[in-house]
Structures are given as structure tokens and as C-alpha cells.
């Protein structure tokens, strides 16, 4: 039995007032004037409006209104070339405004961590209620709010963090233990934002797939967070919390941890569970990573450009047995970076691409597109962090040349035709090849593409337990049973 990826969804959440809580700004602001000081003011002179974030070409690619290859012909800098008539909603999902996001955050909060003022709740109630995925029971969780003086007191006396909308104080998020640093306000905020954005993505998935939440059997979250307490840091399980928020009453789940490569690990695991007949419908979900919001802000301020890391991202995928239509996950094509494989880029790419393709008798040039880390270069280049997708595509092209499949003078053509410009937010697991999955599903359904190889790497060394990196890959193929 084959396993297919039946449907996908992609969401962005515009969170300009949370840029101060990304890991890098949150470390830098206290030593550069503190809240309201020089650095925070400078950052907030460079954040974008919601309309600017919606019209940003890479964001329109992410939610499916443009193809990644359209960026080849979109003049740069992209932030100076907004998409005319850009829409909040795309084929794959939406870009949620921050005003509504506060409603989602409060609805995700089962421990009364988030306090919002009565005036702000009154302000957002109608727009939050208007979202088609939220029900009356959800809206009831908004409550009536907490008085502003009580919120100020919680911030001043009890280490709660202030929450802002359009620069004004509208609430707070509190810690849930006096000394446990895994339950401090910053960590709980990160986890709650991953939960709520994952839930938004999962709702869109059900809507697109036309299935009810109760039809889901199992959920794998590949989000980058560490839910737990002092005794079990990173214990999880965000997957079940997201499932609860989406009313997946017949599902349970667990979390997949593999640094940035986690989505590929999760898809492999989900496909294996379906193929083995353990579960029929498995959802892979990734919520956004607050820690990486504003990560490259220093480079952006240096170049007097907008702080582009102002959107949380999320995605969700539904894997099922072969439906005769949807593209197939080739489980015999899994490429893995073994412990003893070596750490050079050539060795890593050989493990992830050449070896698995050789095993199933497919040439590198028989692959229509390669999806690799798809970080938006407009975010990383000003910070001196390079163009990640371009670097990887050049290595792939060089490998194809080394194998004699193309001439050395054809490497640039390989990069352009079988690669793509980076367009994804930089939240680690988010750009890990899978932002192209929606475009690939669509192209294969329409007969415009036969296959795509998804390749992602994970930086295990960042956790200081090993000098090794990691990586995993798989091939997605057009369903041979599909007509036309």
C-alpha cells in the first residue's frame, strides 16, 4: 500500500508587537536602554504594517498566491515591490492580523496565563468572533478581561511580561512558578504561540481537506519549542494540545524533535504509521517559533530596511493511504545522514540525495525540483548569513556534474530550473524544504510536475551534545493512478 500526502495548509501571523520578545531582541533590549529605550524604539521605527506584511512577495508565495519561481522575475528588494492587490487569504491558508491573533492566544490559554484588558477584549471580540474556524465555545474563553491596574501590578511585582497592540499596553502574560525557568513568562509565551499558530494551521488543513477533526487518528508536532517543567524540559506534547484546541477528540499524538529537520522526520514517521496500518489519518503540524522573530534585526537596522522577521509561520499536512489521486511519499527513497557519514557538505548531500536515488534507480536529473532549506535570502543576506538555498543548490548542481549527469557549465541552469529562490520565514523547522510541499502537491495534481525531492538539515551541534549535524530526505511522486 502506498501513502499519500492528501492536503496541506500554510499560515502566517503578523506579530510586530512581539518582535521585542524574539530571543535576539529580548537579549539586546535590556542592555541597550531597556523597555522603551533607544534600541526598542529604533526596532519599532522599522516594523511593518499588516498591509505591508501581506503585500510582501515571499509571504504571498508562502500562502500559495504566487509560485516560488515568480520571485525570479520580482525585482529586489522585495520589500520595496509589494504585490498589487495582495490578499490576506491564499490557496493554502491566510495571514492573520495581530488584533485577531490576541484572540487566538487567549483561546489557546487553558491556565489563565494571558490577561487582556476589558477595553481590548471589547475591541477585538467582533473580529475574533468573525473568524470562520472559531465557535461560540471558543469566543467564551475570551472572558471579560482584567483591569489595567491589576495587569500593571502583575508586570511590576510578579515578572509578568507586558503585551502590546500598536504600541499600547493591552495585557500581560504571567509566569506559572516562582523559580522554575521552564515555566517563566517568556517560555510560556513561546509555547503558547507555537500551540495557537499550529492550531490555526490545522484548522485550515481540515477546511482544505474537507474532513472533520474527529476523523484524525494521530498528530505529530514538529514545532520548535520545549514544553515541560523543571523535571522534564521539552517533555511535550504540543501535538495533543494542538489537537485538543482543534477538537480532534479521537486523536492523540507526540512531538518529533530533530532541530530544523524535524518536519521531514515527522513526515517519514507519519507515512510509516499509515503504511504499517497503525493509523489511517495522520496529521503533521508545525507551529511558529517566537524565539526566531527579529533574529536578524541587527542587519536589517544596519541597512535601514524593515525588520522582516515579523511573522510567525505554521503548516500542517494530512497523510493517508493511497487515494488514487494525491502524490505518493516514496518510503523506499528515504535519505539519512548516518553517524559515521562525515560532516562535509559533499558527504551530507551524498547521503541525502545521491545514495537514496541510486538505491531506487533514479538519476539526479530525473527529479523535477529539489526543495531544500528555503530561507528568504532577503532576511539573511543583510545580516551576513548568506543565501542558504542558493548555497545548497550549487552543491547539488556540483554533485550532478561530478556524477557526469550534467556539464560543469550547466550548474547554473540546474540551480535555476531544479531549485528555487528562498521565500520562507526563518523559523528553523519552517523553511525546512516543506514550504514547497503545497506548490508540489498542486503541480503534481495538475500534471505539471512528476516529482520533488525534499531535503532538510538539522543543526544538532547547537545543543552541545554532539558535534554532528543531521539531515533527512524523501521523494514525493505524482500518483501513477491519477488520470491525465
Amino acid at each position, binding site marked *: 500500500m502506498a501513502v499519500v500526502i492528501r492536503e496541506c495548509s500554510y499560515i502566517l501571523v503578523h506579530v510586530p508587537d512581539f518582535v521585542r520578545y524574539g530571543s535576539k531582541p529580548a537579549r539586546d533590549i535590556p542592555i541597550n536602554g531597556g523597555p522603551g529605550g533607544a534600541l526598542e524604539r529604533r526596532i519599532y521605527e522599522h516594523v511593518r504594517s499588516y498591509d505591508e506584511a501581506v503585500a510582501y512577495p515571499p509571504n504571498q508565495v508562502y500562502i500559495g498566491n504566487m509560485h516560488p519561481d515568480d520571485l525570479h522575475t520580482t525585482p529586489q528588494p522585495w520589500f520595496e515591490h509589494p504585490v498589487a492587490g495582495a490578499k490576506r487569504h491564499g490557496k493554502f491558508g491566510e495571514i492573520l492580523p495581530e488584533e485577531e491573533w490576541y484572540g487566538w492566544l487567549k483561546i489557546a490559554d487553558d491556565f489563565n496565563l494571558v490577561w487582556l484588558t476589558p477595553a481590548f477584549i471589547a475591541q477585538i471580540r467582533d473580529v475574533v468572533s468573525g473568524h470562520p474556524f472559531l465557535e461560540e465555545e471558543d469566543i467564551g474563553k475570551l472572558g471579560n478581561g482584567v483591569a489595567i491596574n491589576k495587569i500593571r501590578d502583575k508586570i511590576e511585582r510578579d515578572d509578568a511580561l507586558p503585551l502590546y497592540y500598536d504600541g499600547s499596553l493591552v495585557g500581560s502574560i504571567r509566569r506559572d512558578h516562582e523559580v522554575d525557568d521552564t515555566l517563566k513568562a517568556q517560555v510560556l509565551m513561546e509555547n503558547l504561540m507555537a500551540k495557537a499558530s499550529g492550531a490555526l494551521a490545522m484548522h485550515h488543513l481540515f477546511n482544505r481537506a474537507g474532513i472533520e477533526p474527529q476523523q484524525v487518528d494521530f498528530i505529530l508536532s514538529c514545532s520548535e519549542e520545549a514544553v515541560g517543567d523543571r523535571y522534564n524540559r521539552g517533555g511535550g506534547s504540543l501535538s495533543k494540545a494542538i489537537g485538543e484546541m482543534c477538537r480532534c477528540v479521537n486523536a492523540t499524538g507526540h512531538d518529533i524533535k530533530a532541530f*530544523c529537520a524535524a518536519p521531514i522526520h515527522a513526515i517519514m514517521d507519519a507515512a510509516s504509521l499509515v503504511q504499517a496500518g497503525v493509523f489511517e489519518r495522520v496529521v503533521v503540524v508545525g507551529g511558529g517559533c517566537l524565539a526566531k522573530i527579529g533574529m536578524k534585526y541587527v542587519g536589517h537596522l544596519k541597512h535601514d530596511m524593515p525588520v522582516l522577521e515579523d511573522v510567525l509561520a505554521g503548516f500542517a499536512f494530512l497523510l493517508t493511504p493511497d487515494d488514487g489521486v494525491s502524490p505518493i511519499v516514496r518510503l523506499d527513497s528515504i535519505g539519512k545522514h548516518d553517524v559515521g557519514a*562525515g*560532516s*562535509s*557538505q559533499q558527504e551530507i548531500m551524498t547521503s541525502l540525495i545521491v545514495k537514496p536515488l541510486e538505491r531506487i534507480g533514479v538519476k539526479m536529473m530525473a527529479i523535477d525540483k529539489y526543495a531544500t*532549506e528555503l*530561507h528568504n535570502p532577503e532576511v*539573511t543576506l543583510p*545580516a*551576513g*548569513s*548568506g543565501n*542558504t538555498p542558493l*548555497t*545548497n543548490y550549487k552543491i547539488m548542481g556540483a554533485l550532478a556534474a561530478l556524477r557526469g549527469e550534467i556539464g560543469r557549465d550547466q550548474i547554473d541552469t540546474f540551480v535555476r530550473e531544479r531549485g528555487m529562490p528562498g521565500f520562507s520565514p*526563518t523559523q528553523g523547522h519552517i*523553511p525546512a524544504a516543506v514550504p514547497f510541499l503545497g506548490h508540489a502537491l498542486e503541480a503534481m495534481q495538475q500534471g505539471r510536475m512528476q516529482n520533488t525531492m525534499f531535503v532538510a*538539515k538539522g*543543526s544538532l*551541534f*547547537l545543543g552541545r551534545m554532539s*558535534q554532528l*549535524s543531521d539531515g533527512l530526505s524523501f521523494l514525493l511522486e505524482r500518483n501513477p493512478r491519477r488520470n491525465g
Partner: protein
Amino acid sequence: MFKGKNVIVVGERDGVPGPAIAKCLQAAGANILYKTTECFV
């Protein structure tokens, strides 16, 4: 030029990782004090 020199190695995930640089420098006679790889994206 590296023989007998003390070296701190910082590699890059999408470039050359720390262990690969350290191996080359060791072969050239350097003394590796610390090696790491960082991810800059």
C-alpha cells in the same frame, strides 16, 4: 603555517563544519583547543 599553533575552530552549517576544518588543521600540525559549528540562519 599551522604547525604548533593553538587554534579555535568555528565552522558553519551550510559552509564547512567545525570537525572538517579541525581535521585539516590537525593534519597541518595545529593544536585544536576548541571546535564548534554554528548555524547562522
